[in-house]
């Protein structure tokens, strides 16, 4: 997971950051005499979320008057801090997001701790798994809190459509992993929900980027709902999942081979194995697959919604 998903994702994020900074800063990006502190200021200033959007250029312009290597780096890190942390006081509409994020963090952590306590597995996952889990929670919470920095009407609308679509999509993903007949098709409904949320948000906001924004919210909410839903079902009805004969045989044949040629399962019981397996599925799908899928689907929906709005404008124009 770390090699295939996390490292490419982080590298992609870094490249995207540089490309975005290059677009924002313009020709000055390639100017001579740019040191590391300048690069950091350029990156940070391109990430500042503010209405009106003049604060990023203000930071870059001010940086020219900062003298001394230490002072320049200090200024640069200050700009980075401003870009990454919330700058506004929590208003009424942000309190809802903060509440949802707090609930999500508490519930996900509680479910994970419950699994660790009731199904102790020394060899399954271990510290690496816990580190990934904490990292995904922190990144998800940061994205949500940063997303609610925007206070424009279009952003609020995108957030609302994204939240509604996220709850629906998350519920569909949970249904998709149950042993019910034809349940796997529910995943398609979940993706459709993200497309619909993106289309509606971009249509309301007049910009396909609102669709991407709605997709991000769908991803965060649906991923959390999926994690909570799957782990709750696993704990409350662990026997429900034993319909999967492959899982049963994998449990019996998994583990180190003894000197007598027998294989020993690494888990104390089948329930522990099952919990750990579903926990890994919940982590991967909830915090990686669902958000990435939803952002893509939101972008598709955003393009659809923006084009429909444009054609609507063309038809209503002459009236």
């Amino acid at each position, binding site marked *: 997971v770390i090699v295939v998903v996390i490292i490419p994702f982080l590298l992609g994020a870094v490249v995207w950051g540089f490309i975005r900074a290059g677009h924002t800063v313009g020709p000055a990006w390639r100017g001579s005499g740019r040191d590391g502190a300048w690069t950091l200021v350029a990156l940070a200033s391109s990430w500042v979320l503010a209405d009106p959007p003049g604060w990023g250029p203000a930071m870059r312009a001010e940086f020219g*008057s900062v003298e001394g290597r230490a002072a320049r780096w200090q200024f640069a890190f*200050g700009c980075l801090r401003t870009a990454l942390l919330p700058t506004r006081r929590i208003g009424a509409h942000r309190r809802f997001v903060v509440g949802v994020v707090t609930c999500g963090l508490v519930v996900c952590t509680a479910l994970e701790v419950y699994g660790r306590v009731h199904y102790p597995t020394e060899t399954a996952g271990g510290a690496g798994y816990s580190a990934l889990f904490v990292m995904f929670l922190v990144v998800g919470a940061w994205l949500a809190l940063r997303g609610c920095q925007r206070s424009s009407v279009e952003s609020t609308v995108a957030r609302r459509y994204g939240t509604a679509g996220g709850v629906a999509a998350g519920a569909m993903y949970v249904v998709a992993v149950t042993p019910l007949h034809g349940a796997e098709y529910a995943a398609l409904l979940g993706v459709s929900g993200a497309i619909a949320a993106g289309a509606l948000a971009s249509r309301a906001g007049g910009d396909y980027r609102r669709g991407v924004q709605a997709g991000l919210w769908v991803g965060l909410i649906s991923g959390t709902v999926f994690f909570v839903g799957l782990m709750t079902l696993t704990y409350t009805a662990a026997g429900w999942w034993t319909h999967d004969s492959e899982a049963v045989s994998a449990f019996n044949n998994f583990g180190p081979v003894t000197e007598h040629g027998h294989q020993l399962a690494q888990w104390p019981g089948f329930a522990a194995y099952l919990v750990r397996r579903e926990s890994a599925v919940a982590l991967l799908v909830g915090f990686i697959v669902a958000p990435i899928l939803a952002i893509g689907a939101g972008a598709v929906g955003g393009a659809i919604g923006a084009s429909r709005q444009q054609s609507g404008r063309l038809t209503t124009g002459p009236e």
Partner: protein
Amino acid sequence: MSRSRMPSPQTSKVLLAMAGQPAVWRYGYDLGVEVGLKSGSLYPILMRLADRELLEAAWEENPPLGRPARHLYRLTPQGLSAAAAVQKPAVRTAGARRQPRFQTGSAT
């Protein structure tokens, strides 16, 4: 419904520094040096003040050749009122703190 609350000590410093010369447009970095705030604290404060329309910002006209125009800041009339409101409790608190010392001093 908006609540009125006392600004943080850092925000108060910025308000008071700017209220000292209300007509003068100030540079962000110079202001930060004056009040002893780093950019990571100063910019969020300036953003919040601008959000609440206590601060107005403008771009520098005719910047020196080869240097980008810098952002300039000045308090609005509401900002000046806020600075005055910050100053009053500060004076009152300082007075209240000094009073017991006088009493103790005169008693001994």
